[in-house]
């Protein structure tokens, strides 16, 4: 059969979002790929030039809707860099809890979508159910199930609600139990192993040169994590290590990328439990919104000539905001807001990883990189 271009997308059950992947196949083998993004380009960067710093937080939640908290926090840290704000320690702990719970929820969503890609339909329901537990906790913190608008410049919107610590501990420890069931369904299944091992190799140096970070990089056998290399927040005060996977000789394959995210879920869960213990003034004290213990003072204008940026460890890699001050409203709005999305860079790389494998491997490889198109297209 001759070579032909197949267009997977934009309407396709596999693609984890709205984009097109054109693959050139020779029989069943993939010869060339061309990703086509931009279907949900909403112009967030342009919109941000006309919004207050506090108003932009809402947009950042919607960048990657599966992992909303990590994006709004990524933005807030950049604003705090721009405005030079000091954040109280209790607020940092609360932010850490929110971000790590969100990371667990995001990885659960990924696992719940990856199972059906490989063919296992049950695990989607199981993962989504555990994700409901995390979303319940995040709803208590942030007020809604998906887009929380939780951080404020200088702190957080609200303190941990009454009884949150107790519920969070119960749910997170139940979740730690449930991870074993997912592993039973994946690791103990020969079919899953033959589908994901030996497929989609990627090596760390190549990944770094291409701009891929996060769990995809750590699956390659390198323990690079922005939380430890460019430290921010209170990660240094918790006893944890970024999980690293031992890849195969040819590089990290889909199985490694799957395993690293399961381990990340465990690590994040442990971090949440530990943070609840270590939070200053205890997890059961409650401060009103606006209390200086959870919200520091912040100027509202950034004069021209200033800039702020922050690298942040998002669920999918390194996310970054660059804000140039001096915009509308005499500096109340950024002159330019630039957003770095890990998936925007990883999707072309993942497309390159697919060349040489079979068409049936495309969902396995693409799913293992965990694409989220909201942040890709901004």
């Amino acid at each position, binding site marked *: 059969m001759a070579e032909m271009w197949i267009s997977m997308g934009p309407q396709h059950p596999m693609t984890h979002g709205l984009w097109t992947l054109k693959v050139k196949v020779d029989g069943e083998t993939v010869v060339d790929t061309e990703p086509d993004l931009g279907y949900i380009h909403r112009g967030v960067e342009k919109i941000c030039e006309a919004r207050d710093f506090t108003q932009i937080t809402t947009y950042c939640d919607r960048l990657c809707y599966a992992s909303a908290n990590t994006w709004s926090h990524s933005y807030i840290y950049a604003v705090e860099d721009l405005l030079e704000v000091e954040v109280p320690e209790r607020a940092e702990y609360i932010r850490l809890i929110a971000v790590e719970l969100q990371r667990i929820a995001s990885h659960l969503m990924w696992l719940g979508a990856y199972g059906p890609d490989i063919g296992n339909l049950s695990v989607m329901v*199981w993962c989504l159910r555990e994700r409901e537990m995390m979303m319940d906790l995040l709803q208590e913190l942030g007020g809604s199930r998906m887009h929380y608008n939780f951080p404020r410049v200088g702190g957080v919107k609200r303190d941990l609600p009454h009884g949150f610590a107790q519920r969070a501990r119960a749910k997170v420890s139940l979740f730690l139990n449930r991870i074993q069931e997912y592993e039973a369904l994946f690791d103990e299944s020969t079919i899953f192993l033959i589908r994901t091992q030996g497929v989609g190799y990627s090596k760390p140096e190549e990944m770094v040169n291409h701009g891929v970070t996060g769990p995809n990089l750590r699956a390659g056998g390198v323990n690079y994590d922005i939380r430890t290399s460019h430290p921010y927040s209170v990660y240094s005060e918790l006893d944890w290590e970024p999980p690293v996977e031992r890849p195969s000789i040819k590089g990290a394959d889909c199985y490694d990328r799957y395993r690293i995210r399961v381990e990340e879920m465990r690590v994040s869960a442990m971090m949440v439990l530990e943070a609840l213990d270590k939070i200053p003034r205890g997890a059961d004290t409650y401060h009103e919104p606006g209390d200086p213990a959870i919200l520091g003072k912040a100027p509202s204008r950034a004069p021209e000539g200033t800039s702020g940026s922050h690298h942040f460890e998002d669920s999918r890699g390194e996310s970054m905001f660059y804000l140039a001050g001096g915009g509308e409203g005499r500096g109340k709005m950024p002159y330019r807001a630039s957003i770095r999305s890990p998936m925007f860079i990883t999707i072309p790389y993942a497309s390159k990883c697919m060349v040489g494998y079979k068409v049936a491997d495309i969902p396995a490889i693409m799913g293992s990189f965990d694409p989220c198109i909201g942040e890709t297209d901004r």
Partner: protein
Amino acid sequence: MNLRGWVEGLVGWSMDNVHDALPSKDLDLTVTISPPKGIWPEDILLGRVVNLQDGFADMQPALEGLFSATMICTVVFTTMMLTMLPIPYIERKFIGRLMDRLGATTTLRSLWIGESGVTAGEWWNQLPFGMGAPIGWLNKTLNSIWGNDHELEAVSRVNNRGYHGYWFLLPGFFQAFADFTKFAGKEHIVPKEADRPVYEIAPVIIISTTVLVFAFVPFGPHFYVSSPELSVVFMMAIFGVAPLGVFFAGWSSNNKYTLIGGMRSAAQLTAYEIPLLITVLGVCVISGSFNVIEIVDFQAEESNVWNLFMLPLGAALFLITMIAEVERIPFDMPEAEAELVEGWWTEYGGMRWGLMFAAEYQRCYAACLLFALFFLGGWEAPFQGTMESLPIVGGGLEFLLSLIPGIAWVLIKAWALFAVFVWIRASLHRVRTDQILEFGWQWLLPLSIVNLAIAMFLRVWVWDGSWGIVAPVVMILSGVLGLVILVVDEDKEALESMKRPYSTYAVTKAYPGRHPDTKLEDLQRQYKAYSAVKAASSVSLSDTEAGT
């Protein structure tokens, strides 16, 4: 339940009545024409003497055959369609339970229908005389065995479920009817560039060959359409024509996805036809006949051992190849939704798709029925032969068992096997096409030949009117041994030090199977107390209904 006997008797009785109702006198319908002698010399005799009764008696066997065949066909087809209705029901309900997997709590709770006044929850406490106490105990035990004793999650998240079944019976049963009504109402779309004749004929091939399989499937000892000598051969042949229809569908839709799906399907089905046929050949060899009814009779009457126990390898092979033939997970690559949307039937809509979807379930059902007939003794109750030959109670048991029609046993076995199909579908992943083909050609084909050799050995050297004691025991033990070898986990240390990665530098080590970690267990023990604290403390239950 002697369907054939009843039908033939009924038809014969009615034909006889017609025969008797016809006048028995000769009717002289001759006409003599005397043309003028100049034109034609002799008289011309036209017409005949007709005796209606005798004429009818000549036709009667043929008429009886026609009518009884039509009636039997109708009855069997209707039975097949009606007994197929539980199939999607089983699939939907069982998958729902498997996927939800909130432990025994949800499953047992959801059996209650009609929630007015009785909330979802411990409905067993409402039964009179404390009859529900064992159910409650069972629920609790199952939950605690399978780690679901966190009521916080199990109760608060499941909430009340309303069931809208027909009165109290079979909630969700009529979903299948609703589905088909919907399909019937949809538009029939033919893609513009599609090859129209082929496009239209593909569903015809698929559906007709599938229905034809049921021509020879006996539902009971006298409940079949026809039973020629080589019925197994015909059934397998007809079963194998459907891939042609699949390929036609994939090709003619003018769609790259369907083309790939059709080709994958053709390759996969071809690869798995051969081990299937050789396995079925093994069954026929061991049973001594190509006729399905004789195979079942062999198991029921002559050998008193189900073929499953004599040919465990054959049964396993049959199961695997049949799952591949009906394109279910783990072998549903041709219609894998993750890549190909719907695979080779993407472009079909409306009733054509509905009928092909039904045909897929019919093939599943045929596979389950064939397994029940070939390996599970068909219409014989378990241990029927043994029970009937018991000294004192044998006679009574024989009478009791004869009250249950054979079709009931066949159906129970077929439905139970379908539940196994569904279980496999819910838990396994999809195998990639080239891996499927590799598995079929490199593993199943040699194994099926081995199975055939075993069957030949057993039939020729071991069979002497009965299996004896040694042979069944040996075969059962070998089957169990094979299962144990496949199922038991491997050496853990070997796994850990394997060159393939199962370890990480993380808080907890990971390898397939259990993940014992003392730090984790400490934490969990510590935080499990919070469930108890919640119950006991002043923080009330409504406060912990998170987010509701």
